[in-house]
């Protein structure tokens, strides 16, 4: 079987079509009895307190940052892994250096306590 990308478009269309149509149908078919309490944000039955704004959680930010960084490493490792057999020892050394630097990042972040979730 040869490579072909065009079927992906069909698949995408089918998936989107299914998604949109089903949601629309259910919106049209379902009952409509809105009332203010039902439409208010859910807070365990208590009246909503404050707006949805909250303090900045820096931990989430750091995790997202780590993800971004290691995602880059993953992306560079794919072509290397695929080509590894041809590259041989030299390729391995290249990747050792590359991973070593990322490990340094990792140790640094760990040591700074950015991985601790209090």
């Amino acid at each position, binding site marked *: 079987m040869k490579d072909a990308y065009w079927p992906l478009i069909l698949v995408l269309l089918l998936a989107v079509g299914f998604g949109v149509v089903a949601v629309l149908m259910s919106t049209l078919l379902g009952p409509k009895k809105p009332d203010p309490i039902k439409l208010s944000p859910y807070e365990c039955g208590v009246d909503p307190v404050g707006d949805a704004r909250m303090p*900045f959680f*820096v931990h989430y*930010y750091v995790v997202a*940052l780590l993800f*971004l*960084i290691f*995602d*880059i490493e993953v*992306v*560079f490792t794919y072509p290397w892994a695929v080509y590894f057999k041809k590259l041989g020892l030299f390729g391995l050394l290249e990747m050792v250096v590359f991973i070593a630097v990322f490990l340094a990042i990792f140790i640094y972040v760990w040591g700074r306590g950015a991985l601790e979730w209090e």
Partner: protein
Amino acid sequence: MIPLSHIIIFSLIIFTIGMVGALSRRNVFIVLMSIELMLNAVNIALIGVSSAMGNLIGQVLAIFIITVAAGEAAVGLAIVVALYRNRLTVNVDAINLLKW
């Protein structure tokens, strides 16, 4: 058969749109995203040229650009976060302690 000029002109248009956004919008996030748009336009041109010439250097550069864009996003948003802590705003207009 698509002439390469189409691709390049197209990428220039996108690049310009990004430039307009980066210069005229006030929300830091949108300014940053407009800049990402500019980089994306560069990538379109690079890959177009690369595949028209049958030369892979453009694709290599494109990968590096994407990587650098990630680094820039990390640093840029960190600066925005630091600023947000100090000022509780992300609007470039409100950032005016220093006169340009």
